């Protein structure tokens, strides 16, 4: 009963304090719960994206000699399988077609036999372009190679049999050609990585008739299998389930088939991304939560002196310590419960706006746990900041002791961490771990392909954690040191603000060093958080543009997969289009390095940089100009991937014998190159292994100067230029035209990229809010704590300007110290986080991208908050002096 009376009294008489405590806790809970929403949303969306983007979950390769029908039955009966269809593959020695009196032939290719209903069951596999949806279908690229259309005849060369001539019923696109023609069960690098250029699709019955007597080893069958997709939301768990299912099927087939696990391959990437999402939460979110908690603590503890006096009076009136603690617990429970409730409701709203969901978890259990943890966090803050000090005070405090804390601040020995230099030790160990990690070129998340377990280097995470702790403690040490030892300097520095009072102001600040240092550290931590988050996010966004540029190759790219390449003079024609700054042709061939088939790009090294960005990060040694210069000056020069250098133990100047397809006989022949450098990334190149050579040398060696790609730099909007390029080359060329803006949209929503947009919005807004709160609120609360001091100073005759000397000097110390130290700390933390989370970036950034506009807004908001807090306090000190003084 007394508890309720006490609470009612607090709500009536201490409304500001109660509101402040509640709002502080609500903000901390809001941030934690919102991060939970991001966490859940990102994980669930990664699994959903992974599952949704796979056209065929499993391709079961039937072993020679095994019965396809029996294998299909086994696959259909496997747990979780929703559909199975057999797909037949046959080799063709080549295709030919006669159109307009000319016979065109192609190299070797594949003939597929598809059962009825295939396109409906696996809609991502075939896109119908022209003509019928069944019958004899020709792949778009093949049609371009043959110059054939619907109604024309195509002749299919059959190994060991006579050629077969059929009439073309339709032209199709094969968007998932890579997995469709993958080599299941082959050792990596031992089979062709690129899908065939020439593909004919036949109805299953026609295929059976055509290849019933095919030579051994020239045909095969795969069972295309679709799963029910009833998978766990967590990508790692989904990956394990899918891998387990595939192994189970292989065991059931008893050696009769091998599973090409396309779904697991996609989930493999997603689970690494899920861990990175976790890392992002740890690095970018948790510091914000801690700062919000610290702020809530500061708000709650700002009423501590008054609370102490109230408790002392309660004690004088006979309340025993247990009752006093119980009353404090009532206040804490109210602030904690109401704050948590408000925070959770606000988080649901923020989640809806930022992430499109109000759930705090991917599953109901997760949602309950997250909201429970967030609410408990609020209660812990209120308990730690209200109940614990009250309990401690009941053991030590007297009424007189409650009235002053200055002397106790001064008499106290430096804290244990300061005496043992924990700050310096943290920074040194953090630097050591960071240096070690960067030197060894490690990855914080290691998810080896196909292996269910993911290795996370938690030890390395200690580096930013120790930096964070060390920076906070060092800021405290420096702040205290400046105020304790630098009183003279402080007096000089505050003279412009405090004039004749500068000595007194410096003395006051020196003796208030604990609370001022606390304010400065909070300000610094918030600035550091805001700056590191903003820099990280901007760098991430900037790298996504680089990634899009890398994937697309340039602002606008024209590509064709045809061996014959783009029509001659395409690059010259494109150069004449409006909005085009430069256009550079690039060959795209395939070459064998030993048994490994790799992409080979033939360029003019001297001019390629005119059409696209050649970043230093693309090349080992970090000097794009030098590397391309070396390539240009070495006619048969070759840039290879680091993996190739490692595999073949190459030294600069070594001869590398590649096998390239010659135009004369379509066969692969050895061509000698000279290894001159390492390329890590290259426009349009795959992430793993590829080669870069001089186009002139490749053309000379292979007898073909065909160009498969034109890279275009634009001075107008890329989509507009892309449209005019499409009009220029026409649909008959078979070439595709892509622009960087469209590509960036695809990149940002692709499976392997964590969508930071929601988290970025949330964090940047919070960082700004926390910075404003930490600067304005902390300063205001610090000043409110000393309302009595200001009232007395006013009573002694201090004018507004003189009171301002005190207020603005303290504000300047907190703001300048916090912003400068926090700025340095934030920049350094951003550096560390970007390095440690290198795996999130693709490619790794060469330097940090600084969001000057945001940082400017942050600075202005912080200064405004400080000015408002200071001016408000000055006004209140003058007007409320009489009320305060009545208590004296």
């Amino acid at each position, binding site marked *: 009963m007394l508890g309720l009376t006490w609470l009612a009294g607090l709500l009536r008489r201490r409304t500001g304090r109660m509101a402040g405590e509640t709002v502080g806790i609500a903000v901390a809970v809001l941030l934690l719960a919102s991060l939970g929403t991001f966490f859940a949303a990102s994980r669930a969306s990664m699994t959903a994206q992974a599952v949704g983007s796979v056209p065929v979950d499993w391709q079961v390769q039937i072993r020679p000699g095994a019965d396809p029908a029996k294998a299909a039955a086994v696959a259909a009966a496997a747990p979780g399988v929703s559909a199975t269809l057999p797909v037949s593959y046959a080799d063709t020695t080549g295709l030919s077609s006669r159109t307009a009196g000319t016979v065109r032939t192609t190299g070797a290719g594949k003939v597929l036999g598809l059962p009825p209903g295939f396109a409906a069951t696996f809609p991502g596999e075939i896109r119908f372009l022209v003509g019928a949806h069944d019958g004899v279908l020709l792949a778009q690229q093949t049609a371009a190679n043959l110059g054939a259309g619907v109604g024309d005849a195509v002749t299919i060369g059959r190994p060991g049999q006579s050629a077969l001539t059929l009439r073309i019923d339709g032209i199709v696109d094969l968007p998932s050609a890579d997995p469709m023609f993958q080599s299941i069960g082959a050792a990596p690098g031992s089979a062709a990585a690129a899908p065939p250029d020439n593909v004919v699709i036949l109805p299953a019955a026609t295929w059976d008739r055509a290849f019933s007597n095919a030579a051994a080893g020239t045909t095969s069958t795969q069972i295309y299998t679709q799963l029910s997709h009833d998978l766990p939301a967590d990508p790692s768990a989904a990956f394990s389930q899918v891998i387990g299912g595939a192994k189970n099927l292989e065991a059931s087939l008893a050696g009769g088939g091998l599973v090409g696990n396309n779904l697991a391959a996609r989930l493999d990437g997603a689970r690494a991304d899920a861990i990175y999402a976790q890392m992002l939460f740890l690095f970018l979110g948790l510091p914000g939560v801690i700062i919000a908690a610290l702020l809530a603590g500061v708000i709650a503890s700002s009423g501590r002196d008054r609370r102490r006096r109230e408790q002392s009076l309660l004690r004088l009136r006979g309340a025993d310590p247990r009752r006093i603690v119980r009353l404090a617990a009532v206040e804490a429970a109210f602030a904690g419960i109401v704050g948590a409730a408000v925070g959770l409701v606000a988080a649901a709203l923020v989640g809806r706006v930022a992430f499109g969901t109000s759930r705090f978890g991917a599953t109901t259990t997760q949602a309950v746990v997250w909201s429970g943890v967030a609410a408990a966090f609020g209660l812990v803050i209120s308990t730690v900041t209200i109940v614990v000090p009250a309990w401690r005070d009941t053991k030590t405090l007297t009424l007189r002791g409650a009235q002053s804390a200055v002397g106790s601040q001064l008499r106290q020995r430096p804290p244990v961490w300061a005496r043992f230099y924990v700050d310096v030790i943290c920074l040194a160990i953090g630097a050591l771990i960071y240096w070690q990690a960067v030197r060894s070129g490690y990855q914080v998340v290691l998810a080896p392909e196909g292996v269910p377990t993911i290795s996370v280097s938690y030890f390395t995470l200690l580096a930013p954690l120790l930096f964070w702790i060390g920076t906070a403690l060092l800021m405290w040490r420096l702040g205290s040191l400046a105020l304790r030892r630098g009183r003279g300097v402080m007096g000089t520095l505050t003279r412009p603000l405090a004039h004749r009072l500068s000595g*007194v102001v410096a003395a006051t600040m020196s003796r208030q060093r604990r609370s001022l240092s606390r304010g400065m550290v909070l300000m610094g931590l918030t600035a550091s958080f805001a700056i590191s988050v903003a820099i990280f996010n901007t760098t991430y966004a900037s790298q996504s543009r680089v990634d899009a540029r890398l994937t697309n190759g340039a602002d606008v790219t024209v590509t064709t997969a045809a061996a014959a390449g783009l029509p001659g003079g395409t690059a010259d024609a494109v150069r004449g289009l409006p909005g085009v700054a430069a256009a550079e042709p690039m060959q795209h061939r395939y070459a064998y390095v030993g048994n490994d088939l790799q992409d080979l790009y033939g360029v003019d090294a001297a001019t390629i940089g005119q059409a696209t960005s050649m970043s230093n990060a693309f090349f080992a040694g970090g000097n794009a100009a030098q590397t391309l210069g070396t390539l240009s000056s070495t006619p048969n020069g070759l840039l290879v991937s680091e993996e190739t250098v490692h595999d073949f133990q190459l030294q600069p100047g070594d001869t590398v014998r590649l096998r390239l397809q010659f135009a004369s006989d379509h066969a692969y022949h050895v061509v000698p190159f000279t290894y001159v450098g390492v390329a890590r990334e290259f426009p349009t190149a795959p992430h793993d292994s590829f080669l870069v050579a001089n186009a002139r040398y490749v053309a000379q060696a292979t007898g073909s100067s065909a160009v498969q790609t034109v890279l275009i730099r634009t001075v107008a909007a890329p989509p507009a230029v892309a449209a005019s390029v499409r009009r220029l080359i026409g649909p008959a060329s078979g070439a595709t035209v892509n622009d960087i803006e469209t590509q960036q949209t695809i990149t940002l929503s692709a499976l392997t990229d964590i969508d930071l947009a929601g988290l970025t919005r949330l964090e940047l807004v919070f960082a700004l809010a926390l910075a404003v709160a930490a600067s304005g609120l902390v300063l205001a609360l610090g000043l409110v704590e000393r309302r009595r001091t200001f009232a007395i100073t006013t009573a002694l005759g201090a004018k507004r300007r003189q009171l301002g000397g005190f207020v603005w000097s303290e504000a300047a110390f907190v703001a300048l110290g916090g912003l400068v130290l926090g700025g340095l700390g934030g920049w350094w933390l951003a550096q560390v986080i970007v390095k440690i989370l290198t795996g999130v970036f693709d490619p790794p950034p060469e330097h940090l991208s600084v969001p000057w506009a945001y940082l400017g807004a942050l600075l202005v908001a912080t200064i405004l908050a400080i000015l408002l807090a200071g001016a408000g306090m000055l006004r209140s000190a003058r007007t409320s002096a009489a009320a305060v003084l009545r208590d004296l």
Partner: protein
Amino acid sequence: MREPLVRADGLGRSFGNGEGRVAAVTDVTFSVNSGDRIALVGPSGSGKSTLLQVVAGLDRPTSGSIGWPALGPRDDLRPGMVAIAFQDPSLLPPLTVLENVALPVILAGGSEGEAVATARDLLEIFEVATLAEHLPEELSGGQAQRASIARAFSGSPRLVLADEPTGQQDQETAARLVEAILTLGAIDDTTLLVATHDAAVADRLPARWTMRDGRLVTEALTCSA
């Protein structure tokens, strides 16, 4: 020629509204002239402290009027013209005793050296010189009170208002304290208005005003030393 320093006419100060309204001072009319030495006596809660705060210009009356004919407008009263020593010690916690006492001089535009010299003299007079470098919380209640009174005199004000200056002193110290106050007042020609319960203190002052239930019941309209 004795100037009128303070003149109040029908002055009242109340707090709160409606039924909860409390009248701390009601319809008080008086005048304080330069050189006056007045003891303001009355039971606790009779309105002495409130009246001192209104006279010091820290608080505004809710009825009637008050003026400081020879001291200037309210905003210019402090520092320099009027100083007040509060009932409870009111030294600024982050400043030493010396800095506390020197502060009014600096606020009034004096140099730091001048302020410190004045403060040391006053601490000597009020017997707290040995505590000059101590922080307020290291002082006893009596010591802090003497330092507060020293501070009230440090800006050489023309009117010093003291609220129960001997409330935390023993009898012997209280007597010396009153003596010091009167001596300083005489030297600087400082006008004194001292609220007190202590009859011994009141007896040392030539004029006595009595307050009861917010009203001034035995005051002379003008009072002479």
